[in-house]
């Protein structure tokens, strides 16, 4: 078992494109870190550089104490699970599992013992003599996992191992992989584009975008304290509502205004973010998670946002309301996760924005109704419109690089 450490790692392709730009990251011994980001963000490249399948242009990658930059994959003592499993089609399951051990000249008896043990753990005993083509998707996935585990490597590398499974199996395997990792305590670097996967599986999650690491933190802190607009819009499903607001001083307190929407910030909230003072008289981005909006608040002082319901999606446990409000939607596609922004399917008018609100499952709101949404001011997020950085809460350290 060993830590993986990226130090100022750069990957530049022949055309000059930077796939990975100055990546600094440490996966501690036994830790499960998920690299997440939209496709093309460099996460897979980063993983493949650890495996030795991709040259490192600059910087240093260490596994344990060794700098592995110039080591061949076989000398790195890591195991990898590929997106399409990469099971050897001409070998049986047994031969697939034992291949890595044979290559490492593990004694024959030991080979058999280990493969059989892994097969038992993963429930593959019945299919050891089959070939990959005769297995179902879930079984192939297990064999791919087994091939990694049986080697007892220094670290696991997983490249979107669940993306070829159907939704139900994916949830099941998600738990299984997390459980295996917990039992074996093997350092694991896991790549996915699915933020739900990232949040549910990782001890820590590293968000990447266009080759640049945005933030690394535990899933909960990533969710509660996104370091910038990109992380805020990427993490969480449904995505955070983002409005373009003007910050003004009114009386003793601060007010966010956008179109007809007005949110008064209580003094203690404003005081927790001393930097907000600098933004008075300027515009900034205001973020409100859908669950921070409710239909009726017990708190009579909570600011209200009036709008018209366009669509109400009943999800069983809750209802998701798309509410059109008279406010300015944030229009900075270069700072947010575009795919999440597009999840707001309904057209954004000139002076209207659509807010998503998580309402009670038995809400009486119907499309066309006028709704008053109460915003939980303790759960608001503020971002600089130019840099996209979060305006920090005093006393809470920022955990990772922010562009």
């Amino acid at each position, binding site marked *: 078992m060993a830590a993986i450490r990226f130090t100022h790692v750069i990957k530049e392709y022949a055309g000059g494109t930077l796939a990975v730009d100055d990546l600094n990251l440490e996966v501690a011994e036994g830790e499960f870190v998920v690299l997440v980001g939209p496709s093309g963000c460099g996460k897979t490249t980063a993983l493949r550089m650890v495996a030795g399948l991709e040259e490192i242009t600059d910087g240093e990658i260490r596994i344990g104490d060794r700098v592995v930059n110039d080591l*061949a994959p*076989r000398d790195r003592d890591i195991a990898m699970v590929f997106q*399409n499993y990469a099971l050897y089609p*001409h070998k049986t399951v047994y031969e697939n599992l034992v*291949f890595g051990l044979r290559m490492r000249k593990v004694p024959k008896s030991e080979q058999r013992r280990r493969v059989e043990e892994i097969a038992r753990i993963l429930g593959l005993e019945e299919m050891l003599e089959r070939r990959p083509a005769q297995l179902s998707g879930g079984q192939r996935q297990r064999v791919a996992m087994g*091939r990694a585990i049986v080697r007892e490597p220094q670290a696991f590398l997983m490249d979107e191992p669940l993306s070829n499974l159907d939704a139900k199996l994916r949830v099941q395997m998600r738990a299984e992989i997390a459980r295996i990792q917990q039992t074996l305590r093997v350092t694991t670097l896991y790549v996915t584009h699915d933020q739900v996967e990232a949040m549910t599986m990782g001890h820590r999650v590293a968000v990447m975008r266009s080759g640049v690491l945005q933030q690394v933190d535990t899933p909960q802190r990533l969710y509660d304290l996104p370091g910038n607009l990109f992380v805020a819009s990427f993490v969480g499903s449904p995505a955070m509502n983002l409005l373009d607001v003007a910050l003004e001083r009114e009386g003793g307190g601060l007010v966010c205004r956008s179109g007809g929407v007005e949110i008064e910030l209580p003094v203690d909230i404003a005081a927790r973010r001393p930097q907000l003072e600098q933004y008075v008289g300027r515009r900034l981005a205001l973020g409100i998670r859908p669950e921070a909006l409710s239909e009726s608040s017990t708190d009579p002082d909570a600011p209200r946002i009036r709008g018209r319901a366009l669509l109400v999606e009943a999800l069983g446990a809750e209802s998701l309301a798309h509410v059109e409000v008279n406010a300015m939607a944030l229009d900075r596609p270069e700072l947010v996760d575009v795919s999440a922004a597009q999840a707001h399917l309904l057209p954004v008018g000139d002076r209207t924005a659509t807010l998503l609100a998580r309402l009670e499952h038995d809400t009486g709101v119907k499309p066309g109704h006028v709704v008053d949404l109460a915003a939980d001011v303790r759960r608001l997020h503020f971002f600089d419109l130019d840099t996209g950085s979060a305006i920090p809460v005093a006393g809470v350290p920022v955990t990772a690089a922010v562009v």
Partner: protein
Amino acid sequence: MSSLTPLAPTPVAVRAPARRIRVRRGKLVRRIGLNAVALLVFAVMVFPVYWMVATAFKPGRDILDYKPHWFPAPATLSNFTNAIHRQYFWTDVKNSAIVVVCVVTLSMVVAFLAALALSRFRFYGRGAFIVLILGVLMLPLVALIIPMYITMSRAGQIHGLNWVLGVNKLSGVIVMYMTFVLPFSVWTLQGFMRGVPRELEEAAMVDGTTRFGAFVRILLPLVAPGLVATSIFAFIQAWNEYIIAYVFLQDGSKQTITVWLASFTNLHGTDWGPLMAGATLTALPVVVFFVLIQRRISFGLTAGAVKA
């Protein structure tokens, strides 16, 4: 909902059978027509081949008859014995076999390496090399034999070269056959290799093999069927070649089987029965191999062009 219950017959359902029969009859006529055309096409296409085999089994008096004998009855093997006992038959079969085996072996070894480079590495000049391969494949042999002849006749007189090169040397023909077999093999093999996902080798490398080890242990067994198919196609090309053998192998004992077929024709005419028997024998190995690989190889020069 109630209107969809199976109990509610609609007026349309009553009239339907009559219409269906008419449609069926139209389809039937169409199908018979199509099958008749197909049968005709089949007959026209296959007839020449049939006629060769039929003639080969007919006795001489049935062959040289103004009224064609459609079936080889009575059948005889005398044409085959005649062909086989003709001068140089076995020598020329042996020559063809030597040439083909050498050409295929050499091409496969060399082409395998090149295909590996083209399918597994990105490097400067890769595209240009592929274009070169495809380009030289299209060069007409009849244009190339002129300089080749000049070169060979000269090399044949240079001490140190004349043990391989020169006119009337099988080894010279082997070298010249590489001109078309090698580019073809490179192109076809790299297509087969591209069909093997790269991740398999990456997985093997992570599992502990070297890059070369991954080629040998993973790629080679997986691409083996493609290797066999390419070899067979190379075999067929070399076996069928005519013009180079015709120009360069002038001595009867040094010729290949395709040139040997010309020996049935002389100033007095052609010995049709034995010629057809010889032609059947010449075509036989090719047909057998071809049927084996046809599915795999037919798209080498056009492959992928239809993937929507």
